[in-house]
């Protein structure tokens, strides 16, 4: 690559350590990041990969050790100061102003001005020069409110380039992206590297890392396991390095439900915004996967079934109780629980404790005359949290201290306390690390073995195929295919999800 022998690396970390309170985040980590390379940090949640990215971009400062930029020791006190040295960050949460155009967003704060007014022609010219410098383009007048996340990320990248960034740290840039958006982001990252810029990629998507990175550094418990070229690595070698043990197959073996097991969820002719005329059944002990492209209406269907979204027509039955007007509390009482797609927006109450969040759905059964029985509450939630393997020191801390994987498992614990007959899990492994992902799979399988029916929504086709007994494929709000989970292939699913697209005149 652009690595010239004898030249100092773009960034060198020497014996860097960082503690948060009493917890060790990084211990004596030394890594060299070469100019013009894509360097990935991988590790489980809590391994220290994000902290490492934050030290490079000036968001946090190391306790001990040195950071060298082009061979000179630096100590950034803020991301602003790092940017002055050509180091920019693209965070998970994007800072885009929705009311400003693409060009205005990119040049926000550095607009060409005359007498306090923005010179629009000059702005446009400057914008297109930034675009051509980086090798990809977003229309100057495009409005961010109508953009996909990947396009907005491009704006952030352009913004960094407009400020002469030479090194860009990306923290989980594809966590919120669909598959096709992810591909577009990857093209952007390759374009940056081809320009001789350096990209530090913090990611838990191993396929992405293997696809993009020139060099991979693996972290475990705040220590560097190894840092070396990406070429000889594979998903298996990385996982083994991250976990410190070998990993036996990705999915646990399937056990089909008994043939006479009863239908626990039955949806008939359900239509709502984004959903048209869907009928489906889930039996006890069965995992039904719901696949499809983003925008195919899977989440909308889930929301219509639990009543987060009002159905226009059709009915939902849990067991033998059928209703045409579902609402979340009512469905919960019938035995239907849902784990939402977005933990932060639809799942957790961030300021409340771990115990409170876990008990929320089943508080009534742990209270007497409307008064909560604290001891019963603590005991029940602790049991449920242990059952789903949430590791937390104290349960009276706010739920926001938990890692993504533990938060997700907490939502499982919350629903378990309601003793549901059916569970809808919408993207249950999004944004969680490999270890937590595996334990969520095992949890789903244990629960179905105990007779729970599961409707599993996932954008990860492998996950759907690896877990489901039956796979339903959605397209434009309709169910278009039903496949056998034992025999279907990724190709079958994608074929059904995409089919007719080309043949329908648009």
């Amino acid at each position: 690559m652009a690595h010239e022998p004898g030249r100092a690396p773009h960034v060198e970390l020497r014996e860097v350590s960082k503690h948060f309170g009493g917890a060790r985040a990084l211990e004596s980590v030394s890594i060299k990041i070469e100019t013009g390379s894509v360097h990935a940090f991988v590790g489980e949640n809590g391994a220290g990969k994000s902290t490492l990215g934050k030290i490079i971009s000036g968001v946090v400062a190391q306790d001990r050790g040195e950071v060298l930029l082009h061979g000179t020791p630096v100590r950034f006190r803020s991301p602003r100061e790092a940017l002055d040295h050509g180091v920019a960050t693209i965070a998970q949460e994007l800072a885009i102003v929705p009311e400003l155009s693409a060009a205005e967003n990119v040049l926000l704060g550095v607009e060409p001005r005359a007498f306090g007014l923005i010179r629009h022609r000059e702005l446009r010219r400057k914008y297109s020069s930034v675009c051509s410098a980086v090798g990809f383009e977003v229309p100057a007048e495009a409005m961010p409110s109508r953009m996909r996340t990947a396009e907005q990320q491009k704006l952030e990248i352009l913004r960094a380039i407009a400020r002469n960034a030479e090194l860009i740290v990306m923290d989980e840039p594809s966590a919120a992206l669909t598959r096709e958006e992810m591909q577009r982001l990857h093209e952007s990252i390759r374009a940056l590297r081809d320009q001789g810029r350096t990209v530090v990629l913090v990611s838990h998507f191993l396929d992405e890392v293997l696809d993009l990175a020139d060099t991979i550094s693996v972290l475990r418990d705040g220590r560097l396991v190894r840092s070396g070229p990406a070429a000889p690595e594979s998903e298996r070698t990385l996982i083994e390095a991250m976990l410190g043990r070998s990993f036996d197959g990705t999915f646990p073996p399937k056990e089909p439900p008994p043939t006479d097991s009863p239908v626990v969820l039955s949806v008939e002719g359900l239509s709502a915004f984004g959903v048209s005329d869907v009928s489906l059944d889930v039996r006890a002990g069965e995992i039904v996967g719901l696949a499809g492209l983003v925008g195919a209406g899977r989440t909308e269907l889930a929301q219509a079934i639990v009543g987060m979204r009002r159905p226009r027509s059709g009915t939902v039955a849990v067991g033998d109780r059928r209703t045409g007007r579902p609402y979340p509390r009512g469905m919960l009482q019938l035995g239907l629980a849902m784990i939402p797609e977005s933990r932060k927006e639809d799942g957790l109450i961030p300021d409340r404790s771990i115990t409170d969040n876990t008990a929320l759905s089943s508080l009534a059964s742990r209270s007497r005359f409307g008064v909560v029985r604290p001891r019963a509450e603590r005991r029940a939630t602790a049991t449920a949290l242990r059952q789903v393997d949430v590791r937390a020191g104290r349960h009276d801390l706010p739920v926001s201290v938990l890692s993504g994987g533990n938060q997700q498992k907490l939502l499982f614990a919350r629903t378990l306390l309601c003793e549901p007959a059916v569970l809808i899990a919408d993207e249950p492994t999004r944004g969680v690390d490999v270890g937590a992902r595996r334990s969520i799979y095992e949890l789903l399988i244990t629960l179905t073995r105990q007779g729970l029916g599961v409707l599993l929504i996932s954008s990860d086709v492998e996950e759907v195929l690896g877990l489901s007994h039956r796979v339903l494929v959605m397209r434009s709000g309709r169910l278009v295919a039903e496949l056998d989970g034992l025999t279907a292939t990724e190709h079958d699913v994608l074929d059904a999800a995409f089919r007719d697209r080309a043949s329908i005149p648009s």
Partner: protein
Amino acid sequence: MNVAEAEGGPQQVFSGRAVAAMRDLFDLRRSGILLPFIALFIALSVTSGPFFSRANLLNIVDQQASTLIPAAAGTLVLVAGGIDLSVGAVYGLAGVTAAHLALLASPALAILVGILVGLGVGLVNGLITTVFRINPLIATLATSYVVTGIASLATGGNIVTDFTHPGFADLARTSFLSVKTSTWLTLVVVVALGFLLARSTVGRYMYAAGGNAQAARLAGVRVYRVRILAFALSGTAAALGGVIDSSRVLSAQSSSGSTLAFTVLAGIVVGGTSILGGTGAVWRSVVGVLFIALIGNGFDLLGLDPLYEQISLGVLLLLAVGLDAWTRLIRQ
């Protein structure tokens, strides 16, 4: 041996809890207003002779009855994700209604109807902010105009006085164990609302509704119902405050509560309940209201220029909100 163990267990738990309580007290973010309150209390006790007397302290609390009661209920509204700016208007209408009815009918009926008027307005507030989805700030501002207007219409803009039926004065002017009835009433209401918020399932639902309404709904909380209840309690509490005060002075005026909404809100926020919903506690609002009252009392007793009282209150309010914003920032 067994006995020693059995005794050792609970003792250890107790000392652990005591340590945690001490730590929380000195954790600025958690204790918030409590430490400044204690400091001010001690300072006033030292500098002003008459301050630390039973009569003065009981008087402060009794004077704050009509602020403490709506502040306790208003805490529930804020925690549940709403805000109630109509408490002053309701206070005025309830006072006028009660004074009128005391004149025409019986004191008991006056008190009952006065309070029911507040319950009614509270229910309306709850309905329009949930079912009709109008922003609570604007909705309760609007109802406060309507309510004040109704009160003015009913009185023709005059003060209603009633010196002829002394029974009505029993609410505020009698004593039990040499503490005023209105003070006892305040204590009961504050403790009941505090218990409701901290210990009941509905209280938990209020925190959830204010912390993340969407998530609460999906978790099976009836967010609308919980918020309507909070508004209904707030209206009822404001009305009780109005009835108590009109019983105290045996007169009432539609505009008498014109600044009450802001005093109540200031007390709640200074206490450390978040204006953004989801966090807070009734005891905090009690301390907040009393803290503001202590400042006023201190200015009186020390003979300071009351103009500075307003300035210090304003600065205090900014500090309280700033502290809330700051803790949210560092938690991220």
